[in-house]
């Protein structure tokens, strides 16, 4: 089966941060967003909430920068994973990630990132509205096409004229 990817549709996000809660409980047995692998960034004054998590990049900067090759691709799961037996805790990966998805736990002196909960991401499981979802990679853009088409369809219902060029 094709590997799935974590997708985020921030428009759907209600900003409840349950994803942060279940992430920290599942991984560390504690409620503490500072330990969560996912974080909802908010612009409260305009009602904008954007969940941020690891994109599991194909050409991952964290993997490329790691001086001891502790970070590698897990092809089967489609994720980027850390080998803690090799990791030296230098935090180069934290510095280089363009999404801020790599964090450092100061008390345990460990970097950490989303591991997709070994194929059953808890953030997705507990997100009723599926602002965070886990879908087959090829389907991700299909859903987005559908969403975009819906907008045009609704605009048409409201009497708008939609014209395509070319």
């Amino acid at each position, binding site marked *: 089966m094709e590997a799935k990817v974590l997708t985020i549709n921030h*428009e*759907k*996000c*209600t*900003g*409840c*941060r*349950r994803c942060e*809660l*279940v992430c920290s*409980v*599942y991984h*560390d*047995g*504690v*409620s*503490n*967003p*500072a*330990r969560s692998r996912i974080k909802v960034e908010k612009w*409260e*004054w*305009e*009602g904008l*909430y954007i969940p941020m998590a690891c994109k599991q990049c194909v050409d991952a900067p964290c993997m490329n920068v790691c001086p001891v090759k502790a970070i590698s691709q897990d092809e089967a799961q489609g994720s980027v994973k850390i080998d803690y037996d090799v990791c030296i805790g230098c935090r180069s990966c934290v510095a280089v990630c363009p999404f801020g998805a790599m964090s450092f736990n100061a008390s345990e002196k460990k970097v950490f990132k989303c591991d997709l909960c070994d194929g059953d991401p*808890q953030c997705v*499981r*507990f997100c*009723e*509205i599926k602002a965070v979802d886990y879908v087959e990679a090829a389907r991700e853009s299909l859903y987005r096409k559908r969403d975009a088409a819906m907008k045009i369809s*609704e605009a048409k219902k409201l009497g708008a004229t939609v014209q395509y060029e070319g």
Partner: protein
Amino acid sequence: MALNRKVAIVDLTSGTIEKKPIPLEVRKTFLGGRGLDAYLLYKYAKPGCDPLGPDNVVIFSAGILGATLASASARTHVMGKSPLTGMVGSGNLGGFFAPELRWAGFDHIVVKGKAAKPVYIWVHNGEVEIRDAKNIWGKSVTECQWAVREELGDPDIKSAVCGPAGEKMVRFANVMTGIKDAAGRTGMGAVMGSKNLKLVAARGTMDIKIAHPREALENDKKFIDQIVSAKVNQTQGELGTPFIWGATNSWGGLRTNNFQYNQILYADDVEPERIDEIAAETMGKYHMAACFGCQVHCRAKYKIPPSPLAEKFGVVGKYDEGPEYTSQGAFACEPGCTSADTVLIGNHLVDQYGVDNLEIGSIISWAMELYEEGILTAKDTDGLDLRFGNDEALIEMVHHVCNRDTRLGDILAEGGIRAAEKIGKNAIKYLIHVKGMSNLHSDERATPGLALNIATASRGSDHLRSRPAIDLYHLPQEVMRKIYSSPVPYDGPLSSDHREYVGKPWQVFWHEQCYMAVDCLGICKYHTVFLGATLPNFEDWPRVLYYNTGIEMTPQEIWTVAQRCNNIERLFNIREGFKKDDPYKGDVLVDRYHDEPARRGAPDVIGATIDREKFKVMRAEFYQHEGWDENGIPTPETLKRLGLENLDKEPSRI
């Protein structure tokens, strides 16, 4: 772990801060949140104190399940002696403050004394500081929150604040957090203002250890399924609380033109579907937002659309959340207005000023009736044409009350009873209140059970203390029996008819314990038997409590905690002047409930009044269930059973 959070006692007069642990025995006695707040209020507020003086306290707290996997474990409780009623002052807010307070290491912040100049309290990772508020004093509810983040350099700070109305000690000013989350009712914001306390800012990264994480996760998943499968919560998630307003109006249960009618006509523009349309038009298809950890997401996001009124008051395009059904009450049916613009603008103003929408809407509507009756004249209103249905005058009055910048605005800011004394001329006759707090915009004449609830609620007329709202569903007897005969046995009468008087005292008594338990746990009332009969209650909470905190308690034990805490609130009210039949401080309804029949609505509503004698019989039975004497005072046996016999004499357990 979830039980190692502390209490901080902050004395603003001396600047001292004490940090105290909460012993396990105290936890099992009061749980947390509102329950422990009630105990702390009783012990820390000086008997008979001026609510706006240094001897009062204001307490900010999280429930024992705050920030845990308990579904909507978001609630903050705020408590003190009320400057509006002179009795129990209490408000409960959603949003994100309570979880942050817990991650910062604290469950209760008790603030006493008065600062010499404006200050704020900064709670972070086990530390509590009192800081100068010169940069944030005078700012609106939202501006002061963003400003304190800037000052402390952390965008994730959450604050419980008083707005400009609190600073001016409007006696029904709220404590607020976020855009619109409000600890409404009873004026806790005014108590903050009286102490020169602008806000409590919290930020923390301390672990809350979950006792049994895997079980807690799995149990929570089931819990959420139970909660979101309820039709009522699905509707909340689509339309928010306005749907209740719409349903109640079509039936004839909304106070209209103060209390002249019980239904507002030609109000299509204020119907929930229209409000939802505006939210969709201004914020897009997905326009619902949620409190911490909640899957119900019951509040809409909106921007104020252009309109002559919005232009006049300079609020076109302003972002806000809601409106809750309370704003539809305050800015539509009560003042007799029928425009969505007015509701959205009024809602935005109360959110920015930090004032109770229920109270300000009620009190302006009361002034409108006085104006139409000739008790207030154009001279008293400074020329404002304060008739029902005058949207512009309504919005203008909101400004005047919050700023106290006209004579009438200043008088109304004192609350109904004080204002009535100043106005004289029998103005009190038109005031719709219990214990000095204005009623919700709902009309309880057709529902004796709900009438008993508002008459006996500890913080004055109140729909969130003991309302048997499911009474309106005409539930089958077996369902009623299942809910109401657990966790303590009950084999007395229960009626599925909302017009009945029999059986209602037990229902009110049961809901009083249920809602107290919820407030001690720190979860939302939409997650219990408030609007949905199938939602979790006593039988479900022991598991949640055990998996998250490790505390083992039976449903009956949780019930007893709730009863204990409700009795503390009762004892506090008695200490501060409660008398059963006192028109200002008693368990009574105003005459209009008994004397004026409902004039509109469905056949089962038209003509309804609350029968005086039957009401007294209900109230007496309610006292019996409570274990109170015929005057509504807890008997020595009741106090002994609940371990409260030495409440006055014992040194504070914290």
